[in-house]
């Protein structure tokens, strides 16, 4: 009975779990108000990212491209950034922030984006947009480094680094959520409210679940403002919920402005939510109120109904964003389940020293593998050719055919989840998220029992 942490033993990728860095930076960009990211690269680097966002959120988001063509690839394409910034500013009067997000092509040809920004600041912005507040931020996200996860991490840091301005203490904490859904932000804000904690939520994307108004309301935007970003330097603490998505910014604030940082835990499951509240309490001195005691108890009541009867001993494979995967695995273990395979889709060398994974290595009493730099073939090959038996898969929609073709029930969680309706609306964090997750898993198993006629009668008297 062992738990192994190892890297995928092939060099190539068969069915990738993650996309590349610029996508992460673009996700950060859409979370900011009056901001349109300009991706410096080929048009596909934007077109497809906008598409996947629209598949997941069923909303359209604004992101621009510098539209690198052949001539730019040969002779350099800095001019296209200059033109792109001008065109964006001229046509979008509300835009104040333009992150310039690099890609593999423009990093390889060596375009000096930082230099272009200096040039624009000294030239175009002074000459043509003198009475307008405009911020250009270089975000270097070559696609051949890291993944969408590190792209997110880098971009959050770069936004914070650019704006953070110490003035007066603002009496708030910074809460960096990581790559989450509107439902998660809503749940987190609910916990903050119950704790009576005033927080700057990065990034404020609850509004991604936007309405269809009778008078037409065209585009979904994030709600984090420039002032929010500036005042991150005036908080009395930062909590970054995820170690790999947002922690860089928290650490930078700590180093630069001595704002104490707490990294993690991702508040998935009862225990991690408890810890999150504990951290809030420590940081703010505010007590955990009876309302949350009750909310937690409602969740535990629900979990008790499904845990030892249905979920216990179920073998589960989990893939996706690292903090999500680890958080889910921890929660599953509390639910008496057996995570047997965790797949982390990039080659971040820090995974093998992640204390949460090391704790599993130390303590799990069943065979378990954690594969880094993993792809979906690591899952499918084990099921089809290596005798891996699973009761459940947890992960995003790109892995749907592994579940479908191998008749394994699956709960959609993470990004992207385009093959189930409304997944972005529900939280996986907090007590509410714990309940939702456990019940989703139970219901997925129930449906599977009925389709396969596998003791489906058991539910007659439940």
């Amino acid at each position, binding site marked *: 009975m062992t738990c192994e942490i190892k890297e995928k033993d092939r060099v190539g990728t068969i069915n990738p779990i993650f*996309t590349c860095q610029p996508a992460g930076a673009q996700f950060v960009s859409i979370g900011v108000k009056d901001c349109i990211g300009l991706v410096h690269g080929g048009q596909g680097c934007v077109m497809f990212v906008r598409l*996947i966002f629209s598949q997941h959120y069923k909303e359209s988001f604004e992101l621009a491209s510098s539209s690198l063509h*052949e001539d730019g690839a040969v002779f350099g394409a800095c001019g296209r950034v200059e033109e792109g910034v001008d065109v964006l500013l001229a046509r979008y009067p509300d835009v104040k922030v333009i992150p310039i997000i690099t890609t593999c092509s423009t990093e390889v040809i060596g375009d000096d984006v930082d230099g272009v920004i200096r040039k624009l600041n000294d030239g175009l912005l002074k000459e043509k947009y003198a009475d307008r507040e405009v911020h250009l931020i270089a975000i270097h996200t070559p696609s051949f480094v890291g993944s969408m996860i590190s792209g997110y991490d880098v971009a959050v840091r770069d936004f914070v680094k650019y704006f953070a301005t110490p003035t007066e203490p603002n009496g708030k904490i910074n809460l960096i959520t990581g790559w989450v859904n509107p439902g998660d932000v809503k749940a987190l804000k609910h916990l903050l409210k119950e704790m009576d904690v005033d927080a700057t939520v990065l990034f404020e994307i609850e509004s991604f679940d936007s309405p269809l108004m009778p008078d037409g309301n*065209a585009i979904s935007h994030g709600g984090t403002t420039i002032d929010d970003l500036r005042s991150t330097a005036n908080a009395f603490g930062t909590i970054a919920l995820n170690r790999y998505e947002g922690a860089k910014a928290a650490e930078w604030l700590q180093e630069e402005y001595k704002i104490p940082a707490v990294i993690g835990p991702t508040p998935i499951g009862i225990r991690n939510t408890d810890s999150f509240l504990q951290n809030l309490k420590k940081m703010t001195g505010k007590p955990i109120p009876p309302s949350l005691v009750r909310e937690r108890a409602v969740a535990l009541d629900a979990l008790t109904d499904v845990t030892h009867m249905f979920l216990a001993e179920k073998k589960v494979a989990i893939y996706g964003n690292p903090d999500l995967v680890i958080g889910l695995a921890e929660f599953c273990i509390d639910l008496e389940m057996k995570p047997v395979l965790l797949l982390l889709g990039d080659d971040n060398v820090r995974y093998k020293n992640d204390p949460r994974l090391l704790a599993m290595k130390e303590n799990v009493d069943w065979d378990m593998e954690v594969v880094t730099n993993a792809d979906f073939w690591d899952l499918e090959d084990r099921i089809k050719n290596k005798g891996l038996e699973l009761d459940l898969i947890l992960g995003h929609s790109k892995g749907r055919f592994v579940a479908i073709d191998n008749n394994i029930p699956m709960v959609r969680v993470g990004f992207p989840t385009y093959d189930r309706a409304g997944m972005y609306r529900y939280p996986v964090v907090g007590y509410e998220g714990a309940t939702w997750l456990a019940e989703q898993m139970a219901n997925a198993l129930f449906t599977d029992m009925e389709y396969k006629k596998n003791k489906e009668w058991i539910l007659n008297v439940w």
Partner: protein
Amino acid sequence: MPYHEFEVSKVIPERKQHAVMKGAGEDLTSCLPLGYLNTIPGSISERGCAYCGAKHVIGTPMKDVIHISHGPVGCTYDTWQTKRYISDNDNFQLKYTFATDVKEKHIVFGAEKLLKQNIVEAFKAFPDTKRMTIYQTCATALIGDDIDAIAQEVMEEMPGTDIFVCNSPGFAGPSQSGGHHKINIAWINQKVGTLEPEITSDYVINYVGEYNIQGDQEVMTDYFKRMGIQVLSTFTGNGSYDDLRGMHRAHLNVLECARSAEYICDELRERYGIPRLDIDGFGFKPLADSLRKIGLFFGIEERAEAIIQEEIARWQPELDWYKERLRGKKVCLWPGGSKLWHWAHAIQEEMGVKVVSVYTKFGHQGDMEKGVSRCGEGALAIDDPNELEGLEALDMLKPDVIFTGKRPGEMAKKVNVPYLNAHAYHNGPYKGFEGWVRFARDIYNAIHSPIHKLSLIDISKDEIDAGKGFQTRRMISDEGLPEEIRKSTELREYTGKYDSVSALREKTYPEFPRAEAGTEAVAE
């Protein structure tokens, strides 16, 4: 020149020549937007890249192939599971995609060794698949990896395998169309003529520019088989790699999407003397005429006619049921390329709607010539539209429905315009006689949706009919329709199944005796 200047684009004057509004007496010598020019940076254009045009649009619909992209993982991830080109081999091409996963060290030291390892790994993981396509991406083009040399090396070392290389990095052209061109030319140069196909009929075609979206290819192939025609290959939907190596032996190239695949037809005509016949698989009349033309070419028009009679008898009453209920509805036809001309005239004639605007994301002026010709007067034609222009056009035109892509569809939804997916369809296939009725049904369901009507009501201001518990689509669509149409016993709603394609795969076809063994009906 009747250019249309968008308010939102006044600050980028070069955009003015990219939109026209066709007025009375206008024709192509006075009314045609510019097209296929470099995109204006920062305009929030909807265009994709040349890699996507090559790999995602044309390469990947090939069904029995390992499709590897040589580059960082994003290009592969992004072009995976975002289309609906199915196949009759359990959708291998939808389910599996391969990336060489180029990392920083490879950018510095070269990624050719990595590529070779990848090829070997992939063949090992799927030992029954011996065919492979490799697509260059921006990064590997810029570092100058010689993919062709590696492919050649592997083919020599692994007998029985065959590899196609497409050098079409994302930056190679103003849009995905650059990639369509590159893969067309690469395929005919590298692969056509390298395998001799088995000829089983006197009537042999390549079906070109057809991507089997939701089963289009299988519907059309059903007609061809009923006529006793051998479809030697399909370029590329539901198509087989080896079949496509034998394209040079067809008697006729039947071309559907000229935008993406006319190049290979033109080259096949020039190099092998195979004629190019452009057809329309959409719309009863265009499709019937298309089948007749193919029948005429082979001297078997009566076989086409029999199918046309049978299909029209079966489906016309259903198409007309919808036509009566769609009459006069305003449509924005905003697809990628070919549908702007495939659909513009046919939906107006056969469904009674009015096309108030056409646009093309990646088309050329040639596509706009077809589109502008096939639209009526007053239609706004836009080349390479951008986000703000799209919104301004919707505000100005107030269409009842829009046919466009997934992401722009979400934008239209927010301004209360229902959308149908023009690329991947809603509940297709849309080709074939039944498919055309399915399209009409989908348009009807979108326009006359009770939920759509509810979304237009402002409960704080508008009168609410508190006694009303529901509304059927017909309560909406039949309001104001003449009695004889509402009560017609001739017309009927769509009666087909949810899945109209899978059953075709089990079908058997009549044997047509060949003219004389070894001879071919059409002179070479």
